[in-house]
């Protein structure tokens, strides 16, 4: 390569007004490499020992495939339930004044702070057939503990803050005047919500729901106690990885983990790209 092939010479960028760009970017990249990229490289390193056929055999094993269905199905249900209730919670926290509002606001972060295993054990005890809730639900024919409903419940518990905390600031940003403008123009409450408020919250809501979904895909501690872990029925993918690890089958564990990783990454990337486009429009980026 000749020296003049580089269209922009490195080190010739105009001097920036804001100091510390080089240093802060350097530290950021180092941190990302150490904490995020290195473990992931390790994961792929484990995969190197497998041939493509072996890899395929592990990830398409019947029991593992059944765990994908359970995990994705339950995570989807949990994410949708959270989307609805998270939106409602954010709405209540932003638009109304009531005693105990601060407490409710603080409570929203509890699932982040609580060890997930504690949540799992609590939920399992509550919803077991002799627990407080289980006893009430059993006569109605509703079994929660040790079914996929329980899995979805545990997932919903751990991931609700994602929806609330992403929607809340956007809603705070939306002046009540916009809402009032829709009403003065004759819109019903439902129409005003659907055509004016929801479109504003849509990017945040989708992001929050997506994060909640991805978080649920990888959740382990909270679910394991309530799931019952019956092969082909209530086994989640994270458990499959755990089982492989206990058998010292690191390559197998990595293979399954890589599937979860790819799905999560693809989803996050898709949300980011889509959201970028949407937000650009709000800020007038489109010609």
């Amino acid at each position, binding site marked *: 390569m000749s020296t003049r092939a580089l269209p922009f010479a490195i080190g010739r960028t105009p001097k920036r007004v804001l100091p510390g760009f080089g240093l802060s970017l350097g530290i950021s990249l180092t941190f990302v490499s150490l904490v995020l990229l290195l473990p992931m490289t390790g994961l792929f390193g484990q995969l190197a020992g497998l041939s493509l056929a072996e890899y395929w055999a592990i990830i398409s094993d019947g029991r593992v495939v059944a765990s994908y269905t359970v995990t994705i199905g339950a995570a989807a249900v949990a994410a949708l339930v959270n989307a609805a209730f998270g939106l409602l919670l954010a709405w209540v926290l932003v638009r109304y004044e009531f005693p105990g509002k601060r407490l409710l606001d603080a409570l929203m972060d509890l699932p982040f702070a609580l060890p997930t295993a504690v949540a799992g054990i609590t939920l399992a005890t509550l919803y077991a057939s002799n627990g407080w809730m289980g006893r009430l639900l059993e006569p109605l024919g509703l079994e929660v503990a040790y079914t996929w409903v329980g899995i979805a419940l545990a997932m919903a518990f751990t991931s609700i803050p994602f929806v609330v905390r992403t929607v809340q600031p956007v809603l705070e940003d939306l*002046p009540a*005047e*916009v809402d*009032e*403008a*829709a*009403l*003065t*123009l*004759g*819109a*019903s409450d439902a*129409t005003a919500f659907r*055509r*004016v408020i929801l*479109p*504003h919250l849509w990017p945040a809501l989708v992001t929050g729901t997506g994060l909640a979904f991805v978080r649920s895909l990888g959740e382990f501690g909270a679910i394991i106690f309530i799931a019952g872990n019956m092969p082909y029925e209530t086994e989640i993918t994270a458990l499959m990885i755990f089982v492989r690890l206990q058998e010292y089958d690191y390559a197998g564990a990595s293979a399954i983990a890589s599937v979860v990783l790819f799905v999560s990454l693809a989803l996050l990337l898709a949300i980011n790209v889509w959201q970028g486009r949407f937000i650009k*429009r*709000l*800020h*007038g980026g*489109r010609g």
Partner: protein
Amino acid sequence: MSIRLHNIGKHFGSGRQRTQALEPVNLDIHDGELVGLLGPSGSGKTTLLRIIAGLEHADPDGGARILFGERDVTNVHVRDRRIGFVFQHYALFRHMTVFDNVAFGLTVMPRRNRPTSGEIRARVHRLLEMVQLEQLAHRYPAQLSGGQQQRVSLARALALRPDVLLLDEPFGALDAKVRQDLRRWLRHLHDELGFTSLFVTHDQEEALELSDRVAVMSNGRIEQIDTPDAVYRSPANRFVFEFLGDVNHLEGEVRDGTLTCGEARLSVELPDGSEELLLRPHELRLASAPTPEAHLPVTVTATSPVGAEVRVELAADWLGEPWLATVRHADYERLGLTRGQRLFAIPRRWHRFPDASPAPALSPLARAA
């Protein structure tokens, strides 16, 4: 359509924190009138406007009633009142194009009343033409300037052909030049379309220039409602007088028809006692010698020869606050006004608002002038 308000009062909060935002207000606005609600912030003008719009409710006790023409809308929901409302910060729907913003009111109508999409398109384009924004129909609000956004918001409010147009500080967020243009243009639009409008402002000039009648408000009360000319020339009370322009104060003791304040003296036909007189800057004349009626020695501290008249700031030992006088350029040159020059102020007339009687006392000092 006329607007009639009976006993519209409003309290906020409850218990000991209950504060009165509006004393019961009565107001009649005639069909096709453009009325300005003028007052400082916290005077209750926006609250009154929002109650008329139905965005807020008047206190239910006290028999509040709002009539649009013959229609009693007191308990009618905002969406059924047939009003157009323009917000100070435009409140445009940011995710919709200009076209969709203006069309919104038409597209949310119940299906049986809703015009066809072709009619909607034609009507929106007519509105955008009227506000001179037809080329920008497919832009998003974020791509428009403040003045353009406010025009979109006005077109949106007019799309449903409201009987009543309510504007909350419509030009408050815009810069001076754009304000002036929009003001003229709103007046023009009002005369052309003939709706009844009510707008809120804290800008005296805007209220006096734009309105058919001005309602001056303070502390939740309408102090006076009259034509701009009448409000300015014969203010009902001291608040209105002071709010509508610059004021010079002269406080002193009256004895035997002469008001004295330090070395200043002014002949007045008033009973003995302490008095406070108010003078407008343009009602002061400056001269190099006192007159038998007025002996008010002052020193020039600043002059600003910008505009049709020269603004002169005056100070004196007997004055608490400096006075402001506006003189013609010819007088300015004749007197050769410079900073530090000692002169005599001669009032052409003065105003007096004794606290006890609300009626204005106004004395033309014709002889002195």
